[in-house]
């Protein structure tokens, strides 16, 4: 049973608003985030949903200047790409934390703010 783009994205966004990072676990074991309505070659399969709460750091940068005023007002902030079993997640580093090194383990949580859910690593 295949899904749709909208259903997959809607589910993940709704889960984020509840504080959970919902990734898909497909029958072959692959963990996928952001979720897909269909995976090529797996059209008759249905993934299970799984909450991700940890990962390892792939890359980071601390942003001091941003072209958009709303984000500029939040500088400096650190962006991290986190890998969770091959699924990739963009997140913010918690403001009180030192920037972790590539390969370091981090825990992930979700903070709801004025513009919706933001994933925070600490």
């Amino acid at each position, binding site marked *: 049973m295949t899904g749709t783009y909208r259903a997959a*994205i809607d589910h993940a966004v709704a889960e984020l608003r509840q504080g959970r990072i919902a990734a898909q676990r497909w029958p072959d074991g692959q963990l996928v985030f952001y979720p897909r309505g269909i995976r090529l070659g797996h059209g008759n399969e249905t993934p299970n949903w799984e909450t991700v709460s940890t990962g390892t750091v792939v890359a980071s*940068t601390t942003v001091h200047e941003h072209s958009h005023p709303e984000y500029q007002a939040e500088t400096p902030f650190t962006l991290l790409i986190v890998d969770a079993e091959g699924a990739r997640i*963009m997140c913010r580093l918690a403001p009180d934390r030192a920037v972790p090194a590539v390969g370091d383990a981090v825990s992930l949580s979700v903070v709801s703010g004025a513009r919706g859910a933001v994933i925070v690593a600490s």
Partner: protein
Amino acid sequence: MTVALAGSADLVPSLDTGDTTTFDLMAQVADAVLTDSGIEAGEIDGLVTSSMIEAPFMAASVLAEYLMVQPSFLQHVDLGGCTGVASVIRAATAIEAGLCETVLVLTAATKGVARAGAPLGPSTVAPGYKEATPQGIFDVPHGATGGIFAYGMLASVTAQQCNLDEHHTYGLLARARSAARSNSSALHHRDAVPTMDEYARSPITAAPLRRLDSAVSSGGASAVIVTSERRARRLDRRPVLIAGMGERHTHRSITNMPSLAASGGVDAAARAFAMAGLRPTQTQLAMIYDAFTYLIPRGLCEAGIASANSVGSVMAGDSGVAVNPHGGQLGCGHTGVSAGMSLVTAATRQVAGRAGAVQATSHDICFVSGTGGEMSTNAALVLVGG
């Protein structure tokens, strides 16, 4: 390979193109490239174009109609900074397939300061997210937008891989800006070369990038004519033969880049050199996509022109390989979607021996890279003098 670059033209980049439309930039650069090449307008039977902000739908048809051409091959290419190189590849492929013989390849970007909209931000993704992309929904709300953050992440990786310090990146900036002083069509032609002290005081944008590590955003246009070798040999100059072409496209958002240590540019370059039957180390002239200083060492290493050990001397110009001798985007300006084509036009002049004050001494074998998005789209050309 039986296809050649037969002419090139650029409009001088501008920090503010005001009310000028993309129609104007496209038409001006098209006329200039016909003049440069000596090819008649009536010979044009192919058109490849980048996007036009005035024409979100069927841009290539809109432009062909405006230019009053009725080509047998028509293509709109939308691959970010990779667009110029990828457009040449599409034109060459169409010629080889027999769909057309002489293709006008145009890229242009306006930069109207007064009418510039706000960059992509939360207001464009929050309520209407169902019409947005996954990147807009899952990445942008963190502030992961505007592109510089992604190149900050990539620069950290490159600095470690190539053992770079601020003297290396300053050296790249200084060489580009010095070259621009000799290049009358460069944005920074009249600007003093920044000092090391000015570079060290330049504010960090996204660590480790400083403001001065970014090529300055500007409006502009660049164009080439791609034609059969047979036609190119009847012109009044040395043909610039397209010997090798390659591409690899791996992601849109950097979040999904398979490895930040190696972009699709590695495979794009390997394919182009293999098609040309040349080794990367035979390169005499390297035109590397340089929206940021750090992309030069990265591009040289990913193409195999330099190694982590040799990249310092290649960057410094001590290896016999000329790197962006016209000043690149760091010297000439980053003309949006047209920036990648500005390296193709410069390469065309170099290989033909028509680059004037910025002509490289050895210019028979030239590598050109195109990099778009967040190292998302990657294309490469190997050009040889005919």
